[in-house]
């Protein structure tokens, strides 16, 4: 793979990664949000695979396959199962309306660019230049987590954050050590499983999973 193709593929994967993240903010339909998340998982796997092939590191390519399977197939499947159990399938009233969230996403993007300047400066390769994009996705995920009311949207927000962080890890240093990466993936999987069980319990206890109903515990 020559340098220009590498940069091309890397940037294309990053573009798709970011696009999927922004579209999650845009859509209200939870099923569409899950599809976008799966798409983003695919883009992340492509991104890692491109990095792995470029460095000729078979371990990273294998990790890309594993991460792709987890984030583009297994996690969306789990989310769809959680979705199938519930009646509500739309994010009806986010705390911040969609037009404003999109504008805020733009600001978050600028913030990410500002914050990641030192990272790019330390090692200006094509891969680190894409770190702001991954960081934008982290911030968008955090924003979704904070402003969305449906349980499923919050899980997706958490997973967007996680996708973004994984992307940062691979873009900066082709990933943290293998054992940590495995631990992280396992943790994410388990966290989603736990959240899925809790979603089912919440549905049993509250009727639906609008987190606005979670107002019993406060001071």
């Amino acid at each position: 793979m020559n340098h220009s193709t590498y940069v091309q593929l890397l940037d294309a994967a990053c573009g798709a990664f970011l696009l999927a993240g922004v579209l999650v903010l845009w859509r209200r339909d939870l099923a569409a949000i899950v599809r976008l998340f799966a798409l983003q998982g695919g883009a992340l796997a492509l991104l890692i695979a491109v990095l792995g092939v470029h460095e000729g590191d078979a371990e990273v390519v294998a990790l890309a396959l594993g991460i792709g399977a987890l984030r583009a197939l297994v996690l969306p499947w789990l989310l769809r199962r959680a979705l199938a159990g519930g009646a509500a399938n739309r994010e009806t009233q986010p705390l911040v309306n969609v037009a404003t969230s999109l504008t805020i996403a733009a600001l978050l993007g600028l913030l990410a660019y500002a914050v990641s300047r030192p990272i790019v400066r330390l090692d200006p390769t094509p891969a680190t230049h894409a770190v702001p994009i991954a960081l934008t996705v982290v911030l968008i995920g955090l924003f979704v987590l904070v402003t969305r009311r449906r349980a499923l949207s919050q899980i997706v927000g958490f997973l967007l954050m996680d996708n973004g962080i994984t992307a940062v890890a691979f873009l900066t240093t082709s990933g943290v050590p293998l054992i940590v990466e495995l631990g992280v993936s396992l943790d994410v999987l388990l966290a989603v499983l736990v959240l899925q069980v809790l979603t089912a319990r919440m549905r049993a206890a509250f009727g639906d999973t609008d987190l606005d109903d979670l107002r019993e515990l406060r001071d």
Partner: protein
Amino acid sequence: MTGIIGAVLQVVLVAAGAPLLVGLMRQVRARAEGRAGAGILQPWRDLRKLLRKEPITPHGTGPLFRMAPLLLAGTTLVVAAMIPLVTTRSPLDGAADLFAVTALLALGTVALALAGLDTGTAFGGMGASREMVVLALVEPTILLSTFAMSVRVGSTNLGAIVTSVLDDPQQVVFPASLLALVALVVVVIAEAGRIPVDNPSTHLELTMIHEAMVLEYAGPDLALVEWASAMRLTVLLGLLAGLFAPWGIAVDSPAMLPVGAAAIAAKVAVAGAALAAAEVFMAKLRMFRVPELLAGSFVLALFAVASSFFLVAP
């Protein structure tokens, strides 16, 4: 020489082809819905019918009302002559700045909105105010996304951007271009008044945007407005095709001009047919959701600019 012939060819092509494009899109939609359709030539027949009618204007309207269709058609024709459709060597290329193009298109829209207000009817004013909302949201996105394309080239001249894409076709899959493409598609749909922002074939005044402004026009004036609207759609689709898939466009030799004309006709026809096919599956958005759509495209355009600045160019 190539430039002058090419520019004339562009104007003729747009002027003659625009109603055909609308006819094609209606035909695609009709077929997709299981109807026979009126045929591709039907818009031309409609225009002929309207032109034969006696020109009348409502009471109390001023010169603005009569000037607006001319201004709309005139600005669109100028844009058609400027932008790189058949050739990049248009004699007006020096003025084919993306800012100039946007301003010209906006001028036509504003004229029509003023005409809608001039009639003093409720629907005219409503349509004008809605059109201004959409315009206000669309303009920044068009500017930003074309700007994203121009950062790499170092010029906001449309001909230069198209030439650079021709020289290095790979850059179309660059994230900046991809994001800008998505943003531009959305604003082109909004600007041309298509579903899901506006429904060109609606008969319900309350849901109208563009149609509400032109409700009071009749006869040749209406023909002019309809023709100009069709040309706007053609020009916008042509601009999209030129920026993102400029292959076949004539650069130097006059011999390439027929090829360029055929290529742009085919590209615009394909884009129009795809748009019409997509519209079959969509419903019009409620008016208050339109800003969401346009805000989304604005964000994408902004990210396009940002990534064209910050990512390493291949």
